[in-house]
């Protein structure tokens, strides 16, 4: 095992972490501001990926595909919020879980009906494919590096948006005291729609970016959704900073565990059983991490009292 392999895996973990951050940021914002648990966030990820694959198929432009994914997911999110979600803010969590689970059924089967059950493919454009040489002699796929950079840029933009802009102030005020900011003349229902659409757009972007590495298919959002839940539980629900920390932790743990646990087990087991035992344990690693963090901090790393 060389240090280059280790560095490569660390970059892979970073890339997964950035994707999870894009998902988790929307979830945690929606929960923090509106107090809503949204299981259908994975459907928005899927909408983004399908929109990107469709537009890339028509135009051949990857950039247009990414823009389409943002627009389609934001539109789907805004529609979802206006028709269904805003009736759920005052309801208990059980109603929110059920209604958003119902939305998953509708979105998944609707997409299957529109596009069929076969996966679509979204190609990495030629100017982003191929490896790039990094300092230290590492060859790393340019596309994955781009994903990391996009993730970092979005994270920075989001922090600026929350910390420095007028809408960010309104979002933070909405988390703290929604009656008060409504009394101060902020149109709270419009703010909610905007926040929901923003979260949806980020999920859609993540779906499009990952869709070019994996395939674009119905149900692709659900594994990511559950990872994103683990991320925000670890980070503390409602905290963007927590979402970033949790996403990086989960991305690293999952990637490094999957690669190195079987090798670690091979030190004291025969190769075949080491591979299977290592893979089994690696698949459970992030959940064990989550349980361990919750034992120490029941409301997550950066969580207040949710």
């Amino acid at each position, binding site marked *: 095992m060389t240090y280059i392999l280790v560095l490569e895996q660390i970059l892979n973990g970073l890339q997964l972490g950035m994707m999870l951050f894009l998902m988790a940021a929307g979830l945690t914002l929606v929960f923090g501001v509106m107090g809503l648990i949204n299981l259908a966030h994975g459907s928005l990820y899927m909408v983004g990926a399908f929109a990107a694959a469709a537009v890339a198929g028509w135009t051949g432009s990857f950039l247009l595909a990414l823009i389409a994914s943002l627009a389609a997911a934001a539109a789907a999110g805004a529609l979802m919020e206006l028709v269904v979600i805003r009736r759920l803010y005052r309801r208990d969590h059980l109603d929110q879980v059920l209604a958003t689970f119902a939305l998953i059924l509708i979105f998944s089967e609707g997409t299957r009906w529109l596009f069929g059950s076969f996966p679509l493919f979204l190609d990495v454009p030629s100017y982003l494919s191929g490896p790039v040489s990094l300092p230290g002699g590492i060859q790393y796929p340019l596309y994955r590096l781009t994903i990391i950079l996009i993730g970092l840029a979005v994270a920075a933009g989001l922090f600026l948006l929350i910390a420095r802009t007028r809408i960010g102030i309104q979002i933070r005020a909405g988390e703290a005291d929604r009656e008060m900011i409504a009394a101060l003349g902020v149109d709270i229902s419009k703010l909610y729609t905007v926040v929901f659409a923003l979260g949806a757009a980020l999920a859609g972007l993540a779906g499009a970016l990952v869709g070019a590495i994996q395939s674009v298919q119905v149900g692709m959002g659900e594994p990511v959704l559950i990872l994103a839940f683990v991320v925000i539980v670890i980070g503390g629900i409602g905290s963007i900073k927590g979402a970033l920390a949790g996403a990086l932790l989960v991305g690293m743990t999952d990637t490094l565990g999957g690669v190195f646990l079987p090798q670690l087990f091979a030190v004291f087991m025969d190769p075949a059983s080491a591979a299977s035992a290592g893979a089994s344990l690696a698949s459970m690693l992030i959940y064990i991490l989550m349980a361990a963090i919750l034992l120490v901090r*029941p409301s997550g790393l950066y969580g207040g009292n949710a």
Partner: protein
Amino acid sequence: MMLTRESLLNWAMIAALLIVPLAAWSLDEPFIITLATKAAILALAGVGLNIALGLGGLISLGHAAFFGIGGYAMGILAAHAQNYDPLFEWPFLFEGSNQMPLIWLVAVVFSALAALVIGALSLRTSGVYFIMITLAFGQMLYYFAISWSAYGGEDGLSIWVRNEFPGLNTLDPIQFFTIAYVILCLALVFASRLARSPFGLALAAARQNEDRVQAVGLTPFTLRLTAFVISGAITGLAGALFADLNRFVSPTMLSWHTSGEIMIFVILGGVGRLYGPVAGAALYILLEHLLGGISDYWQIFLGVLLLLIVLFARGGLIGAIAGREKAHG
């Protein structure tokens, strides 16, 4: 006992669940008997979840874990028995089993143990954290089952012959239905006794006002954990029966869609109502069968129906017919 509209409806449902397969039996329609068996087993899973959800107010989105553990208990014991491959040789030789009572016992014990561990960790939190954590633990077992190649991994485990029950021929659909139906009735009696017992009253009180329960010297955590374990055990038993019905167990039983579906049975019927899961599971099977015949995308309609029920008819099916009264007082 006063016969309210709801209790009349309950009797009617439980009678219909018996009469439909009996009629199908006399008309020689084994497929309908199998559908009724499936409804009874899924209702049993819902009765299990309802103890945590309706009585205890614990929104568990991870009950597929217990359903799947019950299923794998069946699969593993029966697979070893059919292959004459000992499960373990120490401290005594055990070659697996194809006897339902033993399989049920193992399913109940292991799902209860899993519920104890998952519950003890998850109940440290509440609200939305609890939902996400139960969901995450369920997924953990799902991914574990996928990577567990010794028992089929992603492909699951098939059993050639349905397991045996002393004195009955379980391959006969109506006899297997009878087993599932009797267990469901026993579980319903148990759940109604539990709801009226001092434990059930304390649990319901902990759902309604945690501080007061604490003030009279009870520990909400212990009450909830006990309810979670009982709930998981019943759902695990349902999982063992479900796997036996299909003679097949796969990681799908553990996936979070299964958790969502078990929750749908409870909600379609009406949450917190003792017979809600029976109504919900029967309605679900009916919809699956009727709409599934019309369109491959029948789950769109299921989604729309569920959405309408959540948004506009919060008492579920029983609530719509019997009005707003609660089974669990």
